[in-house]
């Protein structure tokens, strides 16, 4: 049996008296796309931050690619990457300069070639010489994704990767993600509010509510379990506490 790419066991995170994560456990198998769903403040971003080693849990265990992320995160970080709406790239630098800096930080071999490959893949060729601050939301999302793919990560953590994008840009981003995941057999964990995206992309879904896992399974299994046609309906049922 293969080691899961991500293992979370009894994970708890408290800020003073507020419980952000309440003893959650889940695993993400290698080569799959898994969604973390949940309303605002459900604990999605907190979970991703702990998986990246940016945030320390109050208790519990987190392993990514077999590495304990609380104590030995540097052993895994070179093989991971992420995007988040909470971070940005320096606006005055051009897209190529920003990507070049991150390629250096990830010690990517043949940086120029890799950036050109990603520029071709993500339709960024015309943007490479533009300052990052001058890009539209959709263009910024594509650049953020290029940054996240620079080191050909085995584990990709995506926090709302298509938030605030128009349907065309959203569809293109989904396509890029799917191509990358299939081409590299990478493991993708994405936090999203977009149920359609989750239905189309994900093999597994974990739905968080108030820091706990309220439901988990394949999208199809969840639809059957709740007797619903769409994940959005399942999500609303769980959010409002409607019984299965």
């Amino acid at each position, binding site marked *: 049996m293969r080691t899961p790419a991500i293992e979370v066991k009894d994970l708890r995170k408290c800020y003073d008296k507020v419980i952000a994560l309440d003893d959650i456990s889940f695993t993400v198998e290698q080569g799959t796309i898994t969604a973390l769903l949940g309303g605002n403040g459900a604990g999605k971003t907190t979970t991703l931050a702990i998986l990246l080693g940016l945030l320390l849990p109050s208790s519990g265990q987190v392993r990514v690619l077999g590495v304990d992320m609380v104590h030995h995160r540097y052993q895994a970080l070179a093989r991971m990457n992420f995007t988040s709406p*909470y971070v940005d790239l320096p606006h005055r630098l051009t897209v190529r300069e920003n990507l070049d800096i991150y390629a250096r930080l990830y010690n990517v071999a043949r940086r120029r070639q890799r950036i050109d490959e990603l520029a071709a893949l993500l339709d960024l060729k015309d943007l490479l010489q533009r300052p990052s601050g001058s890009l539209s939301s959709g263009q910024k999302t594509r650049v953020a994704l290029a940054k996240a793919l620079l080191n050909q990560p085995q584990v990709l953590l995506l926090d709302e990767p298509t938030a605030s994008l128009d349907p065309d840009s959203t569809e293109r981003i989904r396509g890029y993600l799917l191509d990358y995941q299939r081409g590299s057999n990478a493991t993708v964990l994405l936090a999203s509010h977009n149920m359609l995206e989750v239905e189309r992309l994900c093999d597994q879904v974990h739905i968080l509510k108030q820091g706990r896992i309220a439901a988990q399974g394949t999208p199809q299994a969840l639809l059957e379990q709740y007797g619903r046609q769409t994940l959005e309906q399942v999500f609303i049922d769980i959010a409002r506490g409607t019984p299965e």
Partner: protein
Amino acid sequence: MKTVIASVERITALVIRYLYLLRGSWPRVIELAYWPTVQMILWGLINTFLARHSDWVAQAAGLFIGAVLLWDVLFRAQLGVAVVFLEEMWSRNLGQLFVTPLRPWEWLTALMMISLLRTLVGVGAAAGLAILLYRYSIFAMGFPLLAFFFNLLVMGWSIGLVVIALILRYGLGAEGLAWALIFAIAPISGIYYPVSALPPWVQPIALALPSTHVFEGMRDLLIGGEFSWLHFNWAVGLNGMYLLLAGMVLLWSFHTARQRNLFLQLGE
């Protein structure tokens, strides 16, 4: 060996990024030299005036110009460290940076290299102008200048690390500390007057600062013509201790940031 090369590349990445930032913004470049130059011109005029009316000042050419240039080494060194950190916060890049394989010590090395660069450019320009305007060359101090320079540089780094720790802990609302904190030590560092001019109860506090020993040493050199090894040794010893303490404070603030999710949610 592979690990060392990887570390060097990551440090280089951050230095290059700062150079990109400078290249793309001429106000940033001008700002580097603006205040050191204005300060130097002001104190040069005061020096010229006082030299005609004070034997003490007259016996040491450019006493105040040397003092203000060395003070700017300290100020620029700490500002260099703190501002580069603030640039990361302003561009919301900190969270992204700390999930790369970049180690904290590599990040600190890059900050210090950038700080050195900023200080050399800023103070170097003012020092060059002092030669043209007042025919005073700080470089005439010779090798002792290097001792003064590096001691002030290291002290500036220590203060800069503490400023970073405070901003990391309290958010951008504390960013003013990057410019203000260092001025708390200016009155007791004896920049323009000897430490004996301070009230007796303040003098031991003043002598606990490496900067005080540098400025006392500078006056010994300019007025007495001798390099004070005593002041030099005190400055080095104190700097070693403060740099260690500042590093510990920064590590503590990193730990706190990882407990409170501050790397992704830094704000007011």
